[in-house]
């Protein structure tokens, strides 16, 4: 389940902390970076490393916004729904994304390509509306620009 490579990454996270438990969130982020999301099985395996139960890790994974307990698509779209983006046209951007992808917020497309999640302010308020796809930020969104962005993804 956990490859040697992932185990090394968890160990590297642990090294930066005074005790193994402190590395829990960092370890989960590192594993998720490779696997995309955190299944029950994966949590149990990480727990063995850290001396924690899967339930303890679950209480962390469900608390933090960027840890996923369900499978996500190849691209996770984080669409900002906070106040400046709302003023500048969030509703239109959200509706266009839902219609184009054929999913609701919180869902993944059937082909496993896109997951659509609403998110808090991305700190790009002067360039609103904004969203992230994976680790990249896109700003000054319009429906037409969104179509271009989505079509341009590999």
């Amino acid at each position, binding site marked *: 389940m956990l490859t040697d490579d992932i185990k090394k990454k968890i160990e590297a996270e642990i090294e930066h902390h005074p005790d193994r438990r402190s590395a829990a969130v960092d370890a989960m982020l590192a594993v998720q970076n490779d696997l995309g999301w955190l299944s029950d099985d994966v949590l149990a395996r990480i727990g063995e490393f850290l001396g924690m139960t899967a339930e303890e890790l679950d209480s962390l994974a469900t608390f933090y916004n960027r840890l996923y307990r369900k499978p996500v698509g190849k691209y996770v779209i984080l669409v900002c729904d906070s106040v400046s983006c709302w*003023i500048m046209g969030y509703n239109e951007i959200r509706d266009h994304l839902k219609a184009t992808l054929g999913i609701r917020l919180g869902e993944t497309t059937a082909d496993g390509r896109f997951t659509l999640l609403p998110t808090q302010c991305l700190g790009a308020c002067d360039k609103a509306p904004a969203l992230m796809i994976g680790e990249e930020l896109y700003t000054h969104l319009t429906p037409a620009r969104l179509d271009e962005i989505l079509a341009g993804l590999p």
Partner: protein
Amino acid sequence: MERPLTRNMLPGEEPFDLKRYEMAGGYEALRKVLREMSPQAVQQVVSDSKLRGRGGAGFPTGTKWASVSMGPDVRRPKFLVADADEMEPGAFKDRLLMEGDPHQFIEGIILSSFAIDADVAYIFLRWEYTLAARRLKRAIAEAYEHNCLGRNILGSGYNLELRLHRSAGRYICGEGTAMVEALEGKRAIPRDKAPRPTTAGLWCKPTCTNNVETLCCIPHIINNGPEWFKGLGLTGDSGTKVYGVSGKVRRPGAWELPMGTTMRELLEEHASGMRDGLKLRGIIPGGASTQFVLEEHLDTPMAFDSMGTVGSRLGTGTMIVLDDQTCPVGMVSNLMHFFARESCGWCTPCREGLPWLAAILRSIEEGSGQEGDLEQLSLHTRLLGMGRTFCALAPGAMFPLASALKYFSEDFERHIRERRCPWR
């Protein structure tokens, strides 16, 4: 006009690497401090400069540092935490500082760590700031290579490790003690007020947390002195401030200006005024958890004390502009959904109260508001106010609501009376 914090930034270009940063006078303050100053002397200079925290609360930085346990008997390692968890809706100033001049930020961290005699510093960076993460990672590696970090920094005998922590994300992490919990790998739930983190913070060791913009001021205060820094402000508050404007203005953006610049100058000169055909209805001056102000307040200086005189707060200094074609009820409803979603769930008033208020606001916005809803909202601005909850999240959420009920009462009533949103 002096712009110390942003002078090295060139729009659209990569930030200065260590060599260019040094050519522009960078790491001079660090050399000076390590050569000729004690931690207490650095604390004194910053105290004399009257620098106040730029994260929103405005607490004097020198006073905070003075509360950190010092001396040979202190439990070690001691920590400095750089709060780079900019997640207040409407705030985007720390992003600019970290992406635009990462070495300035790092030098500020090293100087501040020295001032409180810290052994380890963390940058608590929100996950979504990916470009800042890449640039900081590179800059930290450079600083280690050139012995500005690590063992025996520049031959001084001072040691400091700096770690970049990418948070898994939650607004409550911005609360000082919740950030400490998050760094310990726990749920980010605020701690009791006592003992203070400066006595017992991370792993029960003395821990001091400062905002990005606050830390970026430190090298300049060391280089130019406290009197120079005080002279930068217009109204008694020291320094410059990175202000921002978002909403339907002609030219949204962020600018470094003297502390105490008026809201009018920001809106009309720097943001070039409202977009054609739109009128100003209100401003949330310093991020989501500050109170609305109106057009009649525009000549107020954006500084800590002056914003209090018009019933609001400076907060982050990044204003959100409400125009006359945008529904104020919808705006407050949007804010309340944010706060309800981001509540950590620890204390009952916040966990249960915020979703209730969010639901009432949504129903009013959608035309199914009822008689008595406004009384419920008003009552809760007191029941979820300061002192009623475990931390300041819910009271912060009440600030925009209470001020909106005061200034836009006619809009709320019209929604209920007409059973629809007049802007739809």
